[in-house]
């Protein structure tokens, strides 16, 4: 296990990646981390600062200067802002004098040179010389290399008593089978189940469990990145975001120490998810979405079904990631550089989604009705970017193709989910056709959007399709209800309410009244903790991951002006939905 952890530490590429692990480790070791890596640059050479005692030693201030990978000569003393020696100088000259909290200034101080890999021999003499020269009674130096951090991680997070052999075995399998993403993900999911299924009723147990899982996800990420296959990691990251929210939600809005620790780890998992997404999309989607048939060809499937399934999934992920970025942007100060960069990046994802659809025409018709979830995520991102033309274009193409496919018996959207049955779809008889289209969320969703954006032709097309061919099909939609809060993030039970018989043959305003009035009846959406506490994209993540329709409440927000209501449960959230 230690080798796995060491390998993972050595593969961390950015200082921020090691930053993400170290504070949790130190906290788990019982230390008080009083300075965490902030957004932006380090503080006078210090990346992480903590107070505590290790192995029963005297209480000491630990100041960490972090460097990813191995430490080589160019990393020791050069003009680079990441160079180590200037940072060590800054710690002594500026940090200890000016920034170290007054109450700690008399305490012993250890300046820790923290590297993910090893300190190379070529700089050994320089470091030893530096340590001899600047060590004194109060200040001393310590080296924390990959080996030491791996030992600490193993001792404090993953040792036998804390992480049972069965769970360790699942982690090893998840790592070993990264090239078989379905199986790797399955092992990771079982690992999550096993850790969260233990007795974690005490606060300390909970904190340890979420930290363990956070580390496990990081290890999986680091290994997957080395193997250039992030599929299982992406899914694992989504899963963990959801499963850990089920714990974090109990501490939402609280300010005690446990709550702070849980929030801190949860933010760290969210950052990991964003990192995984960034790595995945910047490698696989952004550079290739502008190439005609590019990503369709990259699927290397045996059949067009493979391309259809993979690309709708990819479109859903791309859209969701763009939405998360938009949400993330609003957690920064209004008008700040960070916010502007994130808003721009989110907008790039909206453009990428459009290119993806335009250049991969297989995205112009889902084969499964539930791929409406991915379409809806895409539409939501475009709605948030105010791009109605693109929405209308995409949905009009979908409905045109659906009518053509249904009429001439090409693969039309159906209610089948098993892959082997989809291979046989469609079969050419009327009974089959009716059975394969007994219900739909796709067509009513298109009608609702058509009504919202006043796309009359599109609305009429669905209306006549329903009238002429789909009288047997129950047009429906899903709304979260009272039971959703307890099951949405873990998917352990069926939950929510289904509005049946959505009347797309009625006038557009009547349809909107029908479905949006139900939003009023189902205000439980606003009571979902993820929404209430400002993590509303988490609901979308749950819908994508567990295949549930995207709540119409969100679309409605973009249809009518936002309500000004002091009692609105969302009012105290970190980020508003818009």
């Amino acid at each position, binding site marked *: 296990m230690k080798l796995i952890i060491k390998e993972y530490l050595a593969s961390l590429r950015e200082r921020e990646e090691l930053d993400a692990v170290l504070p949790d480790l130190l906290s788990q070791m019982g230390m008080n981390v009083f300075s965490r890596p902030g957004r932006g640059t380090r503080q006078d050479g210090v990346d992480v600062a903590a107070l505590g005692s290790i192995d029963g030693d005297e209480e000491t201030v630990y100041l960490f200067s972090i460097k990813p990978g191995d430490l080589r000569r160019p990393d020791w003393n050069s003009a680079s802002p990441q160079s180590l020696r200037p940072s060590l100088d800054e710690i002594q000259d500026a940090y200890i004098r000016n920034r170290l909290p007054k109450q700690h200034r008399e305490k012993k101080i250890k300046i820790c040179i923290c590297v993910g890999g090893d300190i190379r021999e070529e700089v050994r003499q320089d470091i030893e010389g530096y340590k001899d020269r600047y060590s004194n009674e109060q200040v001393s130096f310590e080296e924390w290399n990959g080996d030491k951090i791996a030992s600490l991680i193993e001792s404090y997070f993953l040792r036998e008593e804390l992480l049972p052999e069965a769970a360790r075995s699942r982690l090893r399998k998840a790592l070993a089978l990264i*090239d*078989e*993403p*379905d199986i790797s993900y399955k092992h990771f999911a079982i690992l999550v189940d096993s850790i969260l299924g233990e007795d974690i009723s005490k606060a300390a147990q909970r904190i340890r469990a979420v930290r363990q899982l956070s580390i496990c996800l990081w290890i999986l990420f680091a290994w997957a990145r080395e193997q*250039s*296959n*992030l*599929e299982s990691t*992406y899914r694992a990251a989504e899963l963990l975001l959801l499963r850990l929210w089920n714990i974090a939600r109990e501490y939402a809005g609280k300010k005690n120490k446990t709550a702070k620790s849980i929030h801190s780890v949860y933010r760290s998992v969210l950052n990991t998810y964003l990192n995984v997404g960034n790595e*995945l999309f910047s*490698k*696989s989607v952004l550079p*290739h979405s502008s*190439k*005609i*048939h*590019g*990503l*369709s*060809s*990259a*699927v*290397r*499937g*045996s*059949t*067009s079904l*493979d*391309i259809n*399934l*993979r690309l709708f999934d*990819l479109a859903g992920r791309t859209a969701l990631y763009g939405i998360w970025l938009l949400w993330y942007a609003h957690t920064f100060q209004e008008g700040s550089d960070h916010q502007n960069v994130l808003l721009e990046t989110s907008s790039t994802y909206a453009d990428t989604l459009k290119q993806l659809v335009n250049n*991969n*025409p*297989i995205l*112009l*018709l889902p084969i499964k009705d539930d791929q409406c979830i991915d379409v809806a995520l895409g539409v939501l991102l475009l709605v948030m970017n105010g791009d109605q033309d693109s929405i209308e274009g995409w949905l009009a193409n979908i409905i045109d*193709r659906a009518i*053509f*496919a249904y009429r*001439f018996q*090409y*693969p039309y959207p159906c209610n089948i989910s098993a*892959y*082997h049955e989809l*291979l*046989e779809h469609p079969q050419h008889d009327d009974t089959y056709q009716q059975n394969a289209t007994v219900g739909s969320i796709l067509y009513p969703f298109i009608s609702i959007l058509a009504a919202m954006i006043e796309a009359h032709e599109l609305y009429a097309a669905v209306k006549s399709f329903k009238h002429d061919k789909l009288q047997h099909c129950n047009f429906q939609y899903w709304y979260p209800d009272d039971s959703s809060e307890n099951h949405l993030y873990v998917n352990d039970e069926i939950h929510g309410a289904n509005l049946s018989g959505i009347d797309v043959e009625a006038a557009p305003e009547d349809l909107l009244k029908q479905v949006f009035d139900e939003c009023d009846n189902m205000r439980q959406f606003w009571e979902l903790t993820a929404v209430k506490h400002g993590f509303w994209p988490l609901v979308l993540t749950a819908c994508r991951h567990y295949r549930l329709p995207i709540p119409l409440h969100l679309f409605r927000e973009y249809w009518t002006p936002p309500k000004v209501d002091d009692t609105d449960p969302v009012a105290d959230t970190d980020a508003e939905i818009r």
Partner: protein
Amino acid sequence: MRSNNKPSEAVYAALEGILSTDTCDDMLATIARTAANLIKHDLSQVDRLIDLVDKAVEKGEDQAINAAASILASVDKQMPEELIEKLLAHLNRVNPEHKGTIDQIDYAMHRLIRLGKMDAAINTIEALIVAENLEPAAFDSVLHDIQRDTTLLNKTVTRWLLNGNASLCRTAAFLVGGRHGANVTVEVDPAEIVMTDGREAIFLARKICGHLFMNPVSAASMLLSVLQQVQDNNTRIQIGKLILNPLLINYPGKPQKLINERRKSSSAEVQEVLRQIDMALDEYFEALRSIDEIPELYPSEAQREAYHRYNSRKIEESYKEAEKKSVLLGLFTKQTLLYGRTSVNYIHDGQGKAHRQEIPLQKHSVEFEFPRMAQLDPLGIEHLLAMFRAGRRQE
């Protein structure tokens, strides 16, 4: 010789009498056959006999039409032109359900083509295909004749595609892709189209794409032929776009090779259009090649296995279906060889001797280029081709 077997006037009178009174289809068919037969024996009464045949067939129904077809099936140089014309005129009343009559017509047209009466044969089956919506397989013999004659093939395919009638276009596709001449090259017959009218050329090019798509070499040769014959640059660009997409973007193999082989003999204007197509194709495929492996997008192992199981079952089903239709398997006993590269057999000559025979096994393979969009955008390509097939002439 004929004059010696001349029938008497009483025979004519009897035939005419029955014709005027009898309405029985069988009887009318018999009158037609008898009258046609008598022509060989009494040239002096040709007109009267032709009239008898004509009226009998006209008055009769399915049997009479069958008689007309069978008379035509024995057509030779001696058969009067007028009789041929009159009989041909009746064939459009054939009941498409009557396979026997259709077969007779097929054979009759085959005989006419052998006699050099191409136009008469083609006009007849063309009218029948349009009127009765007949499948190409119904005229197996005559279509085989057309396939063997390049000039006739070019003429027929051009004419039928340009006609735009769905059944005729399907038959044109059968001609270039049917079992006797799969993927043959075809040229546009300039006598069948007014090339100065760009709209006609584009209409033909779309029909080529719509109907010959599954025979890409035929489609490429014919589209190139259109391109070489059109008169204005705007039309050339339009045809060039169709050559690029849907043709070459789907079939970058043999069709492109064929176009490359023929480009040198093309005019400078055509070569320029082909150069633009090359550039667009290069850019398109270069972009695809620039994408490294993205394993995150690969189907899962379970999906691959499910597909292989599905595919194996489909191949087995189609193999069994093909076996049922095989003529050879009906004639011979089937033996499966599990090992070896040659088959050793002993043939007994009936005189107590066995002769050893060693037959080396041969490899047989069929190469088929699969349209790329069948995977990348199956519905899109079907939709596009359906639009081309359904397209009508712009007035």
